[in-house]
């Protein structure tokens, strides 16, 4: 069992840690990039004194990076607002940007690297033109990747302003267009919430959780996603007491075709992080479960992948490889996937200059 998971379930355990245990815990924490986030958990629980002083110093120091990135993200949001002000294009802030703009407790210490926004698909081209005019540039990527994004993905190729550090991801849907699940974007817009003091909107609370679950369990390769699971847990804690929240969540998942990721999300937050999910909701979510074998495999593999292993096994374990393949399988129909993987393999065999920074 991972120390980090145990501490997330029961933070007071750190009171009994000895030096060697702290060192194992810190290694897991650093490789999951959760130092700043845990520093707030310890502070909220009155556990600062339970940390040896070099530990607390290090955890607290990592808050500076997070605060810096969040301030850069606020600046980027401001620039997006300016760039689009003349166009009248509506914008929904997604994920970290939304949590921070709404001042949700879960954004404290939460590290992120890019700003995710969504615009209506019919306004996508106009939005891109406005961003280009305001100085954003498309990251230098191969023509094939450009086409890949534009034809099949749910977002533009990443944009970046040369004078700033944050990457801007402009979405028009929350999952790839070629994917198995096709949430109706119109419904997301219809339930989106206007923000105070800002022309931007956020997803409705249920949709925010469903998007987070879809991103973690449907879209990506799951690996390194303990932060993502913690997001789900924190969103549940945030909204569970609102009247009708749980019932609406199940209905909404059905409407949006996101039942499967919700089912997994609730299962894994409950079993791994001990999230307070009512039994009748777990039972209701079970209607979205896959057939027996798929269910059993996911329940065997996902915890093994999300549990911090230090050091990370190389080569990747069988569950890691299988879940990586699964993420591709869910992203595209088989024929397209074959073509895509072949093209990427050929591109990789060409000599490139990429591959890590040189030291000094």
């Amino acid at each position, binding site marked *: 069992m991972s120390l980090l998971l145990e501490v997330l379930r029961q933070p007071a355990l750190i009171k009994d840690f*000895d*030096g*060697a245990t*702290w*060192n194992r815990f*810190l*290694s897991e924490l*650093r*490789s999951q990039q959760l130092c700043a986030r845990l520093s707030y958990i310890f502070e909220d629980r009155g556990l600062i004194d339970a940390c*040896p002083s*070099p*530990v607390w*110093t*290090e955890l*607290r*120091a*990592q808050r*500076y*990076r997070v*605060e*810096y990135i969040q*301030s850069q993200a606020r600046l980027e949001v401001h620039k997006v607002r300016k760039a689009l002000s003349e166009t009248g294009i509506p914008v929904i802030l997604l994920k970290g940007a939304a949590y921070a703009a709404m001042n949700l407790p879960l954004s404290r210490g939460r590290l992120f690297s890019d700003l995710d926004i969504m615009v209506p698909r019919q306004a996508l081209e106009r939005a891109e033109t406005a961003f280009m005019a305001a100085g954003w540039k498309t990251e230098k990527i191969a023509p094939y990747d450009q086409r890949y994004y534009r034809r099949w993905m749910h977002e533009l190729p990443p944009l970046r302003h040369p004078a700033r550090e944050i990457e801007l991801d402009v979405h028009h849907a929350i999952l790839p267009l070629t994917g198995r699940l096709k949430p109706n974007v119109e419904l997301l817009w219809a339930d989106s919430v206007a923000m105070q003091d800002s022309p931007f909107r956020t997803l409705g609370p249920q949709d925010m959780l469903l998007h987070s679950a879809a991103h973690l369990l449907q879209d990506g390769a799951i690996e390194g996603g303990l932060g993502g699971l913690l997001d789900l847990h924190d969103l549940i804690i945030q909204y569970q007491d609102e009247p009708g929240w749980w019932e609406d969540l199940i209905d909404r998942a059905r409407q949006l075709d996101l039942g499967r990721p919700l089912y997994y999300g609730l299962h894994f937050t409950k079993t791994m992080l001990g999230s307070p999910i009512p039994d009748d909701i777990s039972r209701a979510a079970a209607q979205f479960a896959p057939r027996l074998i798929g269910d059993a495999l996911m329940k065997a593999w996902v915890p093994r992948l999300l549990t911090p292993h*230090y*050091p*990370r096994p190389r080569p990747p374990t069988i569950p890691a490889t299988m879940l990586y393949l699964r993420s591709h399988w869910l992203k595209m129909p088989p024929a397209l996937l074959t073509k895509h993987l072949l093209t990427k393999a050929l591109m990789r065999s060409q000599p490139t200059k990429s*591959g*890590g*920074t*040189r*030291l*000094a």
Partner: protein
Amino acid sequence: MHDPLPANRQQPAILQRPHSYMIRTGPFTTKIVTEVSSLAALHRWCYGSDHGPDSAIVNFNIRIGNGPLLRRLIAPQATFAFEGESPFQPFPRNHAFAFFEWGLNWCIATRAHQYLMLHAGALERNGFALLLPALPGSGKSTLTAALAFRGWRLLSDEFCLIDHQSGLLHPIPRAVPLKNQSIDLIRQFAPEAELGPTFERTRKGDVAHLRPPQDSLMRQFETARPRWIVFPRYRPRHPTRLAGTQKGVAFTRLAHNSFNYRLIGTTGFECLSGLIQDCDCYSAEFSDLEEIVRTLTDLAAADT
């Protein structure tokens, strides 16, 4: 001058058990696991072998591993990993010590935000610290090394770690990388200097490391109060010159020279303002080491 190590005492890689040991430098404890025996031996030579209890909290877990198997047969490589992640490309294995030092610098610069971190040499006399912030190529390391052999205590060659609250400087005495002509220059200037092997043709040219003087290692937990900031610049055949620098100018130069001034936000501004207020600021030009050392020592004597 002898090398502290017999060259290439390496066993075949496959027979080795990794070395695992800790290094304590100033406020940081680093744990190293490596198959590269020459690296472990150089670390023992440079930093000694007594680094406190095994239960100490480790700040940096660093693994210096063997590079890809095929490369081992032709030109052996080594890899750098911090907490299991490798941010850098592999490097020639016989340069492992130099690359380790650069890699550890990267770890500190990206994580130790509890300090305002300046890229500067630092030395102490009578409890007060002299800061030598400079760009690469300005002769900072050479001047730092020279002062360390003329009555100054070496606090750091690379990082000035300034405590946010107290404004005190925390020493972090590490191997001082001397480059190209500086290697022989320091050998002549201070025959007692202990230099490690020369790593030839690295990306920064030839590099040899100066072992921190024993006194500097013994007193590595003793903080010092910053008192003088001198921007040094080596100019061949120029006379030694020490001139006052306006505090506003010094502030801007230090802000640019810092590793994390922008990142730590208002804390950085307040910390740097305090530092500038506490210090006299100068810029120095020099070509003669003895002369500039005398000038700076006189400055300290007149002022304390």
